[in-house]
């Protein structure tokens, strides 16, 4: 006879105090040995690009992100997972100080970009180094060429001519895997492209100025499976010269693209580690429940 029945699951989830896995601090070296199942694991992670120390974000009295410490490395994809409203998008938007556009948002803790506090950087300069791709594809109402050239044009003090821009635009479109599809219609309106193409255009636009870090906020949630696969492959390829942070609520996607995975719940960073560890051998009870689909 079993006397100690585990309480109903939902009750655990809502009421239990957060249990944080041991060893939450980022491991010093590269990540653990790659498993054979992952299709694009390669190489060691490069130097640390961004460091988050005790980062918290408040919306008024509500604390959306609580004391999160993480590191973001070159050549590595960090996937943020967690149920809706767990603060992962807020965390992402804090990294290039987009939360400052929201009235009433306050931030505590420190974010370092290459060792410099981001607060000490001029905000547009920061955003040039830390680019972002949004959940909804948001190409501007201009031609495809103008979209990719947009940041190149607007970031420099003098307007470069088309001859200067053309190779850069081509390079960005190639890296985003869009060149072959659009090379004949560069002057067509960007909003005529399909959703998946639009999102890749947005990626091309973001990487055209060669930022150091690329933030992606659920980039595939508005797309069909085929476009999603294309973008996931693209993420794997871009990883070699960028640090990528991707927010997703799709665990399979995090597993497919992530080198490191951070699981957040109600603003807490519950567990952080190599993707294999999070999915195959999670250390915190809540991570285990989430990756097994007990809640979410």
């Amino acid at each position, binding site marked *: 006879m079993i006397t100690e029945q585990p309480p109903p699951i939902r009750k655990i989830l809502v009421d239990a105090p957060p249990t944080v896995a041991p060893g939450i601090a980022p491991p010093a070296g590269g990540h653990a040995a790659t498993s054979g199942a992952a299709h694009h694991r390669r190489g060691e992670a490069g130097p640390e690009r961004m460091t988050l120390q005790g980062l918290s974000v408040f919306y008024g009295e509500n604390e959306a992100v609580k004391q999160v410490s993480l590191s973001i490395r070159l050549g590595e994809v960090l996937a943020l997972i967690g149920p809706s409203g767990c603060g992962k998008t807020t965390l992402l938007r804090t990294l*290039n100080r*987009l939360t400052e*556009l929201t*009235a009433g948002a306050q931030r505590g803790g420190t974010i370092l970009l290459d060792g410099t506090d981001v607060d000490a950087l001029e905000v*547009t*300069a*920061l*955003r*040039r*180094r830390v*680019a*972002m791709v*949004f959940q*909804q594809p*948001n190409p*501007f*109402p*201009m031609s495809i060429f103008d979209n990719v050239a*947009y*940041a190149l044009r*607007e*970031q420099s003090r003098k307007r470069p001519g088309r001859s200067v821009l053309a190779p850069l635009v081509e390079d960005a479109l190639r890296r985003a895997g869009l060149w072959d599809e659009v090379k004949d219609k560069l002057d067509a*309106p*960007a*909003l*005529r492209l399909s959703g998946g193409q639009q999102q890749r255009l*947005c990626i091309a*636009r*973001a990487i055209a*100025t060669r930022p150091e870090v690329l933030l992606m906020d659920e980039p595939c949630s508005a797309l069909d499976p085929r476009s999603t696969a294309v973008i996931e492959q693209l993420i794997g390829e871009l990883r070699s010269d960028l640090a990528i942070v991707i927010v997703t609520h799709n665990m399979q996607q995090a597993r497919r693209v992530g080198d490191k995975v951070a699981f957040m719940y109600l603003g807490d960073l519950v567990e952080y580690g190599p993707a294999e560890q999070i999915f195959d051998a999670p250390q915190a009870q809540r991570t285990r429940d989430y990756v097994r689909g007990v809640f979410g």
Partner: protein
Amino acid sequence: MLHRLRQPWSDRRAELTLGALACAVLLVIVLMVVFVANEAWPTFQHNGLRWLFPGGNVDTQINTMVNAGAKPPAADYHLRAWPLVWGTILTTGLAVVFGLIFALLASIFIVEFAPDRLRAIIVPVVRLLAAVPSVIYGLLGILVLVPFVGNHIISAHDKKSVEFIVQLSGASLLVAVVILTVMIVPIMIAICVDALYAVPRGWKEGAVALGVNRWRAMWTVSIRAARPAIIAAAVLACARALGEAIMLSMVSGSVGFAPNPFDGPRLFLLEPLRPLASTIVEDSESLQAPAVRSTVYAFALLLLFSSLLLSLAGYLAKQPMKKYGVRS
């Protein structure tokens, strides 16, 4: 009978009744064109389209018509209304150009740069300004601005230099354009601000997230996306300025004179004029004289025609952005 009316209406009957009421509006437009064109016909009969051209003193020509009586000889229909047309073009064109620049800058300020507390005041104030009757602007113009210009800006030398052509009193193109601009700016700001707020958040955030500064993001993305609405604002303001009669008749000097740009920019701005709409108001007293009546209705027809063209222009302006998927 009453009993039948109380019965619930059938859908068919309701649709027909509502549809008929809606189409009554179209009937009004048709009637308007027919009636005005019909009344204006004699002028065209006697002058052709040449009545739009310059030639002679338009005030004298209209006076002849007033004195011509009930059965005017054909010669009394003679009219060359260019000064009035030119006055309309000048006041409307200048006011809309200045107004649009000012309204755009002010809208960007309100949407992007104004501190929250100032924004909370400025938005209702703009709406209030848009609702101020034009006659109040006219009153301020004629009692404050016109004497000021007449006493402090126009010198005796200015008056003397054109004394054989026209008298300078202060009521002038300058005052007319200033007041007209102030009058149409709030409408344009209201529309532009709405349009800028309606720009999808993703576009603005997308631009800002690329490290583009706030002004460039506004200018290259938001203004671009809001362009149809901005053109609509300009068209609406143009219609307002074109049809403004009372205020302009108060501050423009009410002289059938065509300000001459070759007099130099200073004198040009200080010369009086009278646009078409004001002429209609001022000559509406003498409508029983057939020649005046026909002339006044010809002016009205010209205004009606211009406003129809403006409506069409506003409609066409919305089209180019549709290919980008922008809905206005």
